[in-house]
Structure formats: C-alpha cells, structure tokens
C-alpha cells in the first residue's frame, strides 16, 4: 500500500534498536527533586510553597494566573529545602523548588480518583487537565488545556494523535503505546469528548509494527478511532506535517492546526490526560529514553519530574569514557547541554541522549555551494540558504521576507547540508530577532 506523504523531509538512521525492545523500568525516586517553575511554553509559575514547608506527593507547588500556563506539582513527598536556581533543559537557568524526599510517597489529599469521570462535561475535563499541569509531552510542552480550547468559530472535526516518534534514538512513545495501550485509548476518547469530535486518527510510523498492531487490536472495531501507519520519514511527527499526511489539509503560513479543523496531541499527553481524569493524578512522571553509545545500559525509564539527570545516568550504569555530547530530547530537535549537573528532567524531556565521539560529526562550517538540497528537504517550503546568508549579514528584515517565521526548527536542512552549515541555528536566530522586533512594535502601538 502506498502511503500519503508530505513534501521534503530526510531519512536519518533510526538508532532505536538499543531500547525499543526494552520494557519501561521504574526509576528510583530522587533524594532531592528539583522542580523548575517554568517547564512549559507560556508564563512561568509563582511558587506556592516556601523553604521549610512540608509537601506531599501531587501537591500543587507553583501556579500562574495566566491562561497560557500550567501549574507544577511535587513529584515526591518531603520538605522544601530551598527555592533556587537550576539549569533548565531548555537553556539558561530557571527558578526551581528543591524538595528533599522522605521516601514515604504520601499522597496529597487533592489527589483522589474521580468515580464519575465518564459523566463529566467538557469544561470540567479541561479544568482537571489544567490543574493536573499537563503540557504537550512530545517536547514543546505547550499547555494542553489551551490546545483543547480552540476558538469557537473554528469547527474541529479531526483529533490526530501523534505516535510517529520520528526522532532517531527515542523510544519513549513507542513503549508507552505498547505498555499503556488502554490508557492511551481512554485519553484519546476524552480528547474527542472535550472537543465534540467523532473522528480520531492515531498516526504511527511503520518502523514500529508492534505498536501499530497493539493499538489496532485494542481499538478493535471501535468506531471513530483509526490507527494509521505512516511512512518512516523525519519530521513525520511535526504537527503540520502529520495533518497534511493524515487529512491532506495544509495549515496556512502563520496559522494553527485549528484553522484547518485539526487538533494534534502526543500519545504521552493522552496517557497523562487519562491518568489525571480517572485517577486524579497530576503529571508527576513521564517515560524518558536514556540512550546513546556513551551510556553503559540504555533504558526506557519511568521518571519522576524533577529527577536530576545525573541520577538517571548513574542508574543506567554511568557514562562510558568517551561522552562527547549530551542532548535532552532527540538528536534532531533536542537541545545540547553544557553539562549534566543541576539539570532536572521536566515535562517535555522525552530523551537523554549521551553521544560518543563516533556519533558526533564535528565538521568545519564551509561556504554555501548553492546546491539547494536544504530547499528540497524543507518540509515547510522555505529556503534556508537565503535566510542563513541574510542572518550572517545581520539582515533580519530580509530573513523575515523569506518567511523565516514559518520554520518549524526540525533541522532537516542542517542534516542534509553538504557544506555542514548549521542552517537551522541561523534560522532560529532570525526567529528570535524577528519575534523580539514584533514584540517591540506591539508594545509601541
């Protein structure tokens, strides 16, 4: 069967064999959980606790009044040691609540199952999802309740569930689909109910036949939920590309999926929604793939949010001697870290990648040879070569004219470039600069 596809994209090696067959292992709870107050896109939280306070598992410890924000919760029970700075996997340092674990795992009284969860209204469900602190778990960590509140004039007719996991190395979503299939489907049904949509499609890349089969079997003949095998091609799991492949619709430049009647959710997010609604458990843990040639025992682990990365590396047997690069997230879109110290796992951390010398290409950046391979592979049809040369000369207005803002930062251009130019980074610089300019203009007017 020929599968529908999207324009561009690349075919990096999968590198998933180290962990794809390994069942998820529960990681040891951390002795000190470091919970950043800003783990999502949107306004950072204000702390609700102070040093010395006793906290219980699932207790809300940070919240914000802003709509585009989600609260954070204590993932262990114990005592707040301090509110201080930690390194954020998203770069820079952020405020975090440091909780000393008493290893009792005493649940907070707000955490209780909702026996009548099946009868709840859409607004009640949205509120539960917000209060549970759920943000997109594919990596971007966009607040889920915001995504589930599309403007009323947009009619949503499709819920797309992203099980593509197109990033090489990562197998967290793959394992989640195999091991928590029922919860996944429950989450999907809840999302459909909230949006009043009759049709959901779960898209899974065809390099995970076992996951496709498992989800298909569980969904059975249930009407409305379809499982679709997708080409194994990067960036298959990008929101706009997934919509194009499954529905044939194209999200307009500068638009949102809701503009074409779609909402996309990651499989991990759906499972978190199911947990929050049925069991009343806020987002306290997630599956993280710890892999790469520089780690002794690659594993998929169920990790409490706020567990220091160093703890997990230790539980995976530590580094081999030749660690060259540490990335949080996948190799294509993840962010390289200056070091593992004082760095916690957050809601969007899908993987911890420990790359050895042999896996890191350190090529000299050479001049563009105008081969246009970047144009060919760009899934959003922009021209990275021109944007990068504009940024090199500091001509950000020119970069804007070349639609730099449409870039989804997938990194396909950098991957394919024969001159080894870090094109995606230049475009990211342009996006930052243009966004800052727009903000300044908006403030002026």
């Amino acid at each position, binding site marked *: 069967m020929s599968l529908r596809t999207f324009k561009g994209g690349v075919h990096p090696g999968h590198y998933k064999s180290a962990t794809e067959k390994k069942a998820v292992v529960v990681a040891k709870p951390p002795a000190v959980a470091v919970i950043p107050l800003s783990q999502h896109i949107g306004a950072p939280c204000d702390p609700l606790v102070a040093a010395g306070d006793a906290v219980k598992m699932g207790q809300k410890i940070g919240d914000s009044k802003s709509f585009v924000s989600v609260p954070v919760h204590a993932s262990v029970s114990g005592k707040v040691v301090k509110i201080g700075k930690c390194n954020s996997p998203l770069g820079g340092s952020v405020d975090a609540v440091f909780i000393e674990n008493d290893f009792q795992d005493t649940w907070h009284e707000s955490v209780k199952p909702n026996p009548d969860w099946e009868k709840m209204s859409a607004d009640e469900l949205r509120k539960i999802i917000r209060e549970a602190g759920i943000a997109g778990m594919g990596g971007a960590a966009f607040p889920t309740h915001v995504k589930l509140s599309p403007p009323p004039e947009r009619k949503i007719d499709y819920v797309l569930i992203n099980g593509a996991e197109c990033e090489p190395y990562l197998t967290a979503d793959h394992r989640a689909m195999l091991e928590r299939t029922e919860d996944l489907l429950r989450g999907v049904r809840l999302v459909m109910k909230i949006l009043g949509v009759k049709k959901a499609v779960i898209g899974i890349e065809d390099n995970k036949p076992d996951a496709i089969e498992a989800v298909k079997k569980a969904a059975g003949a249930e009407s409305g939920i379809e499982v679709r095998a997708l080409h194994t091609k990067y960036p298959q799991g990008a929101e706009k590309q997934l919509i194009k492949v499954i529905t044939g619709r194209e999200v307009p430049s500068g638009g949102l999926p809701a503009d074409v009647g779609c909402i996309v959710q990651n499989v991990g997010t759906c499972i978190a929604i199911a947990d929050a609604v049925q069991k009343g458990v806020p987002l306290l843990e997630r599956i993280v793939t710890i892999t790469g040639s520089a780690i002794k025992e690659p594993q998929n682990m169920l990790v409490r949010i706020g567990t220091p990365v160093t703890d997990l590396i230790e539980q995976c047997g530590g580094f081999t001697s030749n660690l060259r690069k540490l990335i949080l997230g996948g190799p294509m879109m993840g*962010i390289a870290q*200056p070091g593992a110290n004082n760095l916690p796992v957050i809601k969007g951390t899908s993987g911890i990648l420990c790359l050895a010398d042999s896996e890191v290409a350190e090529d000299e950046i050479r001049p563009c040879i105008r081969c246009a391979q970047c144009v060919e592979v760009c899934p959003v049809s922009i021209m990275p070569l021109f944007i990068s040369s504009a940024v090199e000369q500091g001509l950000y207005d020119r970069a804007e004219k070349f639609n730099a803002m449409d870039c989804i930062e997938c990194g396909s251009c950098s991957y394919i470039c024969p001159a080894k130019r870090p094109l995606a980074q230049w475009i990211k*610089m342009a996006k930052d600069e243009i966004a800052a300019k727009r903000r300044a203009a908006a403030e002026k007017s």
Partner: protein
Amino acid sequence: MIVPAVISLAVLGLLFGGLLAFASQKFAVDTDPRVEQIRELLAGANCGACGYAGCDQFAEEVVAGRAPLTGCTPGGAKVAAEIAALLGLEAPEETARMTAQLKCVGDCNVAKKRHDYLGVQDCKAALMYGGGPKACAYGCLGYGNCVRVCPVEAITMGENGLPVIDTDSCIACGLCSRECPRGLIDIVNARGVHHVRCKSQEKGKQVRAVCDRGCIACRLCVKNCPVEAIHMDNNVAVIDSSICTNCGTCVEVCPQKAIV
C-alpha cells in the same frame, strides 16, 4: 558619408543640451547649500552613531535644527565647532573625546571553559545554547561580533580570543557597545587610561572558580586610590575617569590583575 553623421549628431547634441539646460533652470529644486557644506565637514564614516541613517541625513537634520550640533560622535568637538560656525550659532562646549573600552580580561588562557561549542560562530548564536561556552556568565564570548560591526576597523580579534580595541582610531560611535550581547564594551572618556576590565557581579569565590583574573571585589583598589576615584558597584570595582589621575596605583595593588 562622414559629414551628414557629424552634422546630425552635432544637431542632436545641441538640441538635447539646450533641453537639459532649460530643464535644470525651470525644474531646479531648492536645496540649502549648507547641507552640502556640513556633509563635507562630517567625519564621513556613515556609522549611524548620531541616530540618523548616515551622514547625509544627519546634515539635513542639523540644518533643520532637529539634530544636536554635537551629534557627530566621530567628528567630536572640532566638527561641532565647525558646524556651529557655518550655521552662525554659538560653538557648543567642548566635550571630552570618548573611546570604546573592553571590560573583560578573560581570554582563553585565564577564563575556564565549560563546554565546546560547534555552531554558528557568532556571539549571539553561542549565547543561545547554555549561555555560551565560557563558565563565566559575564565574560566575553570571543566570537567577534564587535569586530564585524566596527565601521573603522578599530577592533581586531586578539590571539587569545579577546577583541583588541585600537583607541586611537576608535571614533566612539558605540556600535560595538550596542552589538555586544554581554554589554562588555563601554564608551568612556579617552583620558582615562586604566579600567577595571571585568563586569562579573558574582562574589569573589564564584569569580575565582571561573576565571583567574576577574574582579573579586576585594576593595584593595578602592582603599588605595589616592583620589577616591574608585567605588564598588554590585561586587565589581568601577573607576570614575573624570576623577582618575592615571597614577596607576590600582593597577599595582589589584591581586587579580583585573585592572589594566
């Protein structure tokens, strides 16, 4: 054959010449001759330090009275006086010559590196990932954005990865100061020779952990300055160049060699 060609070209030439002469009289645009004269007086670097789009626009604005006489930073007091004389205005008070100074001594031999960086060789780009490869959160990143923006090539990249500013050719336009993402280049009075070349607001212990030469806020310079020109601001010493006598005592007492 030659004669008719010469005649016809001559006639055409005369005809068009006449037309142009007529048009230049009839459609002449009144321009203030002073604009052109002032344009000639300016330093002519087109650096934009005056805040206008190049020397031409500045000349127009100054004649129109919208720009200050002292607006041309590279030209300094001399140009300001000349402009004033031309416009028949009172010469502005003489201002001190300014120059750019780098406030960091953390070259690659003394500042500790936290990680390698392989991406775009640009200070702002390096800053995007984990705040730059140097361990010091205040130090010079060394990818030379200031070198690239300098309109008079007064900044070069030194051997040890710190930019070197030639204060004699610097025109104090301030482009480098605005470009530096760490804000390490100050436009200062050119008569001050010695500067505290560190902006780290960390306490001494943290500074020592990341750099061999950063200011550790020991206050020795403050205590020893004979004219009290040095004060502490957020854990870093600052020399007031309007008081400083360039005696060099602070340079001698600084245990970190952060004052140069």
